[in-house]
């Protein structure tokens, strides 16, 4: 029967072409939306490498660290140190640190290195040692950055697990220098006066953009608050669990008491997280809604075309009943043809989707995401066409053979 159905579908390709195209478009849309869903679900379930609960972020404005001369910088360093000290002394505060790029912020310092002959981006995060405690970053091996690091002849860096794995393979990264490459991508030894970055620790993967972000390569290095050329403007504050929103007023008042002429924009890190998640999921939700409308339209069209097809084939259905088809056989005949068309569309759609990564048009989706999207889309499309085929199929089973045979 399967062979018969496929032969019939093939021989009727002109009349079934429209249904085929509708199912194919539906399948491709489903692949895209469900693939994005699978991608984000995978991201969501992966650890992000830090904690955002009970963490406040204060953006210091008006300091203008970048334009300050040496004399002004010396004053500002003392002011920042006083800010940290006074905030840490608040009863609700557990830990305070400052960092150049806090989680969920759109700013990032990007450097590059080479892995397997190709250039890759590395997010360089500078922070004070306390940030590890504020964000709950897990150190896997080695040590974290320390206040005394500025006195060393090299720059100690802590790298994430994925960078350690891809850069140093099975070797221990501890004590190894970060490789340096010339402009042509050739590995080079550090020259005189070059700053050497040496790995002193490895953390778990750290995803700056949180749950829905990628897992970038990251290096952490210390901020030299005593002699550094620059001072971070973002302060990270871990408060005790149960601290209320009233803390914000106390925090800002405390900071204004220290340096009245700076501004302090304070918010919960979880608020940034929520905004960021909505920024990522929003387009997906909009796409899903548009896709749902499209699929509903296609579904209505499919029901109409199938309905018309059943009506047009009344004589044939009557003939099949006369030749021994039961109502059940007729139902499976109509649904079987629909499933055969769907199978053809799924095969073609799968071929198309598999081509995307080969031509670099997969928008960074991994093979597992594409496979997940294809699997889900296949299940949904079969369920969808079966649902669309139920009513026309029911009509087909209601055909009385004696009446149907009068149709020409």
């Amino acid at each position, binding site marked *: 029967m399967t062979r018969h159905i496929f032969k019939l579908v093939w021989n009727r390709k002109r009349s079934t072409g429209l249904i085929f195209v509708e199912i194919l478009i539906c399948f491709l849309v489903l692949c895209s939306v469900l693939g994005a869903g699978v991608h984000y679900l995978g991201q969501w379930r992966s650890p992000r490498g830090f904690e955002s609960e009970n963490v406040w972020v204060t953006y210091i404005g008006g300091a203008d660290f970048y334009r300050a001369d040496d004399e002004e910088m010396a004053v500002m360093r003392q002011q920042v140190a006083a800010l940290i000290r006074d905030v840490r002394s608040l009863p609700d505060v557990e830990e305070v640190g400052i960092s150049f790029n806090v989680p969920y912020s759109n700013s990032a310092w990007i450097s590059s290195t080479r892995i397997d002959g190709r250039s890759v981006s590395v997010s360089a995060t500078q922070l004070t040692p306390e940030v590890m405690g504020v964000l709950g970053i897990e150190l896997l091996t080695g040590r974290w950055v320390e206040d005394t690091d500025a006195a060393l002849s090299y720059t100690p860096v802590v790298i994430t697990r994925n960078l350690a794995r891809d850069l140093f393979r099975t070797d221990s990264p501890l004590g190894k220098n970060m490789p340096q490459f010339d402009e042509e991508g050739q590995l080079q030894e550090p020259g005189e006066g070059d700053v050497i970055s040496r790995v002193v620790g490895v953390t778990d993967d750290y995803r700056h953009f949180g749950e829905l972000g990628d897992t970038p390569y990251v290096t952490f290095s210390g901020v030299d608050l005593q002699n550094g050329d620059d001072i971070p403007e973002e302060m990270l504050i871990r408060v005790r669990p149960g601290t209320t929103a009233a803390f914000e007023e106390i925090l800002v008042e405390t900071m204004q008491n220290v340096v009245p002429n700076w501004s302090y924009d304070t918010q919960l890190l979880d608020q940034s997280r929520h905004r960021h998640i909505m920024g990522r999921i929003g387009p997906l939700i909009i796409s899903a809604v548009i896709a749902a409308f499209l699929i509903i339209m296609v579904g209505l069209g499919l029901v109409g075309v199938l309905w018309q097809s059943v009506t047009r084939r009344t*004589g044939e259905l009557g*003939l099949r*009943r006369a*030749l*021994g*088809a039961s*109502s059940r056989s007729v139902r499976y005949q109509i649904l079987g043809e629909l499933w055969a068309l769907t199978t053809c569309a799924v095969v073609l759609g799968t071929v198309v989707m598999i081509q995307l990564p080969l031509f670099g048009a997969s928008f960074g989706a991994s093979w597992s995401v594409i496979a997940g999207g294809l699997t889900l889309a296949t299940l949904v499309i079969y369920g969808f066409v079966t649902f669309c085929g139920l009513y026309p199929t029911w009509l087909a089973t209601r055909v009385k053979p004696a009446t149907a045979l009068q149709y020409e």
Partner: protein
Amino acid sequence: MSTNLESSSATSTANAGGGVAVDLAAVEKIYRTDKVETVALSNVNLTIPGGEFLSIMGPSGSGKSTLLNVLGLLDTPSGGTVTLDGDLVADLNDRQLAAVRNREIGFIFQSFHLINDLDALDNVQIPLLYRNLPNSVRTQMAEIALERVGLGSRMRHFPTQLSGGQQQRVAIARAIVGTPRLLLADEPTGNLDSKMGEEVMQILEEYNRDAGVTVIMVTHDQRLAERTERIVRLFDGRQVH
């Protein structure tokens, strides 16, 4: 009937059991709408022994096709009883009726009712699709049936590539491929010229004679009807002879 059905081998090519005996007792068929009641058959009593070649005649609208539909289990009578080989048809459910039509009854229609998107071989295989047969067996049975009606060289032709007579022979091959014991032909020569009609009639006679199959043929052609063993005449839904 279901017992006969189960005992009839799906793959058998010979008809060991002869024709089906048909018995109609006080059969009525009334079509009702909101305003009109049309009596298509009224008090039809007919006993057809297995292996008989019977023709049904009558003017248009006399109920010939309705009677054939009732005999072929395509329609249910409004009153009376139909028995095939002693089994009451009214006792059968949809699945059992379909099985009886599939294994015991072959249909030949005036307008052939071939599926234009399938070639002759695939058209003939249709009744076999509803039996649990391997594709190779189905194909072999369809080839034998087409050879039998003289279309061995036209198996891969589509209906539109065949003449009317050839199309009707494909329809006959489709009717006999499952070795039914009752063959119902609704004006099988109605759309054919006399030469092709004669060829079709000869095939029916040969099948009745050689396989012992019961053949019931509706026809307007007095000459063809006289070649059958018995003529039943209908007028306004009633038997007149």
